[in-house]
C-alpha cells in the first residue's frame, strides 16, 4: 500500500495482482473478488492471517498457493490472536533491529462469519481490547459454508441452512443476525465499517482507511454465496446490490466514534426483491416475508435517527 494511494474509481487501483488465479473457490464466489481488491489496496507489504474457512481451504491446496503475500493459517477460532502475535513480534523485532523499523507491514486477518461471530469471537474481542494494529476483514456469507451450509450467528432470520431447515414447525433460522460490527464498535476502536462487494470503490476506500489507522480496524464485508444462498453463480453482485437497495444491508463506517452511512438509498425496495432471488428463502410465506420487512423498517428508522437525516429512504417498490 502506497501512502499516496487515493481511490476514486477502479482506475486508481494498482494493476498488480497479489491473489493468483487457479484456486478452488466455487464458481461465482465473491470472496475471491473481495480478496483481489483487498490485496490491491494493501499491496506487497502485507501479512495475511487467515482463519479456517472456505478461503483458507480453497486457496492453499498443498503444494499450491494463491497467495503472493506472506500468509498464515493457524486454526479456526484464533486468527485474531495469531495476528496479535504477528504484530507484537514485528514491534519487538523492529526495536531490536531484527526487522526494518521504518517499514510498515499491514497485518490483515481474513475470517468468515463462523470464525468471527461464533468460535473466534473471544480472540477477536481480546485483540480489539489490547489495541493491536491489525485490520480484521470479515467476509460474511451468513453460514458455515465450508462445512456445507450450517447456521451461524450471522445467518439471518428465516434463512434455510442444513441445520435450520424450513419445516412445518421451525421456519428456517428462528433467531436474528447478530449485529457484529456494532459489537466490535463498542470496543471503541479507531475504525469500523460495513462494506459490500457490489460497491467495490466504497469497500476499497474502507480497506484503505482501515489500514491507515493506528490501532485495530474492522471491515465487515457482505459476501454473497451462490452455493449457500442458492442463486445462480452470475448473480453475486446483483445479490449484493439488492441487499443494499432493500436495506437488508447498510454500508456505514465509524471513524473515531463518528457514525456515517456511506451508501445512501433514496428509494428503498421491498425485501422480497432480495429474498426471492435466493433459494435459501424459498418457501417462506408472505407473512414471514412481511415479518422480515418490518424488521428492516425498524432498523432503517433506527439508522436514520442515529444519523439525524433520512439517509435510507422510504419503501417505494
Amino acid at each position, binding site marked *: 500500500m502506497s501512502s499516496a494511494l487515493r481511490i476514486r474509481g477502479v482506475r486508481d487501483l494498482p494493476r498488480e495482482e497479489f491473489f493468483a488465479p487457479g484456486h478452488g473457490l466455487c464458481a461465482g464466489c465473491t470472496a475471491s473478488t473481495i480478496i483481489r481488491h483487498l490485496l490491491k489496496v494493501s499491496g506487497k507489504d502485507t501479512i495475511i*492471517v487467515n482463519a479456517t474457512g472456505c478461503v483458507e481451504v480453497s486457496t*492453499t491446496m*498443498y503444494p499450491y498457493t494463491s497467495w503472493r503475500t506472506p500468509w498464515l*493459517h493457524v486454526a479456526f477460532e484464533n486468527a485474531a490472536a*495469531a495476528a496479535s*502475535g*504477528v504484530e507484537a513480534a514485528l514491534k519487538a*523485532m523492529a526495536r*531490536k533491529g*531484527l526487522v526494518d523499523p521504518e517499514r510498515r507491514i499491514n497485518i490483515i486477518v481474513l475470517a468468515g462469519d463462523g470464525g468471527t461471530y461464533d468460535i473466534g469471537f473471544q480472540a477477536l474481542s481480546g485483540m480489539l481490547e489490547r489495541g493491536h494494529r491489525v485490520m480484521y476483514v470479515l467476509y460474511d456469507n451468513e453460514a458455515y459454508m465450508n462445512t456445507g451450509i450450517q447456521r451461524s450467528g450471522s445467518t439471518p432470520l428465516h434463512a434455510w441452512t442444513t441445520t435450520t431447515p424450513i419445516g412445518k414447525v421451525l421456519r428456517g433460522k428462528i433467531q436474528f443476525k447478530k449485529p457484529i460490527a456494532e459489537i466490535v464498535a463498542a470496543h471503541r476502536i479507531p475504525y469500523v465499517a460495513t462494506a459490500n462487494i457490489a460497491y467495490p470503490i466504497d469497500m476499497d476506500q474502507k480497506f484503505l482507511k482501515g489500514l491507515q489507522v493506528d490501532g485495530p480496524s474492522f471491515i465487515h464485508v457482505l459476501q454473497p454465496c451462490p452455493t449457500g444462498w442458492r442463486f445462480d453463480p452470475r448473480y453475486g453482485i446483483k445479490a449484493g446490490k439488492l441487499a443494499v437497495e432493500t436495506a437488508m444491508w447498510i454500508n456505514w463506517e465509524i471513524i473515531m466514534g463518528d457514525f456515517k452511512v456511506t451508501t445512501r438509498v433514496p428509494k428503498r425496495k421491498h425485501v422480497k426483491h432480495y429474498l426471492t432471488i435466493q433459494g435459501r428463502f424459498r418457501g417462506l410465506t408472505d407473512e414471514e416475508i412481511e415479518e422480515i420487512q418490518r424488521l428492516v423498517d425498524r432498523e432503517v428508522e433506527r439508522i436514520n435517527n442515529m444519523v439525524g437525516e433520512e439517509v435510507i429512504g422510504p419503501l417505494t417498490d
Partner: protein
Amino acid sequence: MESMLESRARQVRVLLNSNYAVAYAARDADVDVVAAYPITPQTGVVEKLSEMIANGELDAEMIHVESEHSALSAIIGASAVGARVFTATSSQGLEFMHELLHIASGMRLPLVMSVATRALSAPINIWNDYSDLMNVRDSSWITLIASTAQEVYDSIIEAFMVSEDPRVLLPSIVAYDGFWMSHTYEPLYIPEDRRVVSKILPRRPRYVLDPDNPITIGSLVNPDWYYEIKYQQVEAMKEAYRVIREADTKIKYYLGRAYEPIESYMAEDSEILVLTYGGAYETLQSAVDMMRSEGLRVGALKLRLWRPFPVEDLKSKVGDAENLIVVDRAISYGASIEGPAALEVIAAFYKGKSCPTISSFIAGIGGRPVSEEDFKGIVKKALKLGDKALKMGSIHWGVRGASYE
C-alpha cells in the same frame, strides 16, 4: 547433576523459586514476545516477566491474552514472523492449548513453554501431579522434566538451543512440579553477564513470513502429502535426541553443569533401582541414602528427557539391576499399565537381552506428598510382590480403598 564451579561463564548465586528461575532464563534468552495467561501455580512466571519488561530489564512484547488458547496462538503467530517466543502454563491451561500444541509442532515452530505441572479437573485441584503433562505427550513437543530450580533455568536455555536448531525445529516444554518447585526457593547459579547466553543461543535464520520472500504457512494438505509431512516430524523428533546431547555438552562447557537424559544416583552397583521424574527425585535420593544405611543396594534414576524417550540411556543406566520400580505421578486411565512412564520403560525393555523385574507405582496424585517413607514403602512392596507386581497393573500408592494383596 554434578556441579562444576570452574566454568567458562562467571556466575552469580541467586535464590529463586522455579517459576522465577523460568522467568530469568526467558530473560537471559532475550525472548521477543511473551504471551501468557494467569493460572495457578504458573502465575509467578508471567508476573516476573511482566515486571522485567516493565523495568526495561527485558526488551520484549508481553501480550496479555484473554486465554491460554490465545496465548499459544499468539506466540505461533509471533514465531511465524521470526521472533523468539515464550509462554508458560499449567493444567487446564495446557489442556485448553491442546489443539494448538499439535499445530505448533506441525508448523515446525521453535516455541518454548514452561509447565508448572498440576492435577486436572474434575474435581478441581490446584496441586501437583503430572496428569497435565502426560496428556500432551503425543503432541510432538520435546519435553524435559526438571527436578531443581537450577535445572529449570538451564533447561529453558537448552530448550531454545534444541528447538531452534535447524535439524529439529520442534517446540519444547520444560516441566517441573507445581508448588513443590514453583513456589519453593532454592539457591542456583545464573550467568553474571547475559551475553554468554546469547553466545549459546545465536539467532538462526529459518523460513518466516516475510513480504520480500512470501511463503504460505498452514496450508491444506490432503492424503497424498499429509503422511510424508508428518513423517518428517517423526524424524525430527528422533534427530532431536542427538541435538539435545550436543546441547548438554554446550551447557556443561559454558555453564558448568552436566545433564543426561536419564540421571542417576547410587545406581552403579544397585540391585534395585527406583525411577521417577520431577521434584520427587530429590526426595527419592534421600530415601536411597536411608535405605542404603539399612543395607539395601538401592539406587535412584530420574527421567529428565521425556520426549524423545531415551531408550538406550535407560538401558545402560539400569545395567544389571534386578529390580526396576517406576514411580509415576499421573494416571493413564484404562491403560494396561496405568503409569505413563512405566509403559515406556516396559516397551524399552521388551525382548531385550536382559530385562529387570519391573513394577509400576503411581503416587502423589492431586498434590498428595510423596515422602522418603513412601519410597521406602514402595520398594518394600515391590520386593515382596516381585514378578507379581506388574500382573496387577499399576499399584496406586497411598490411596484409600485400593487393595493389592
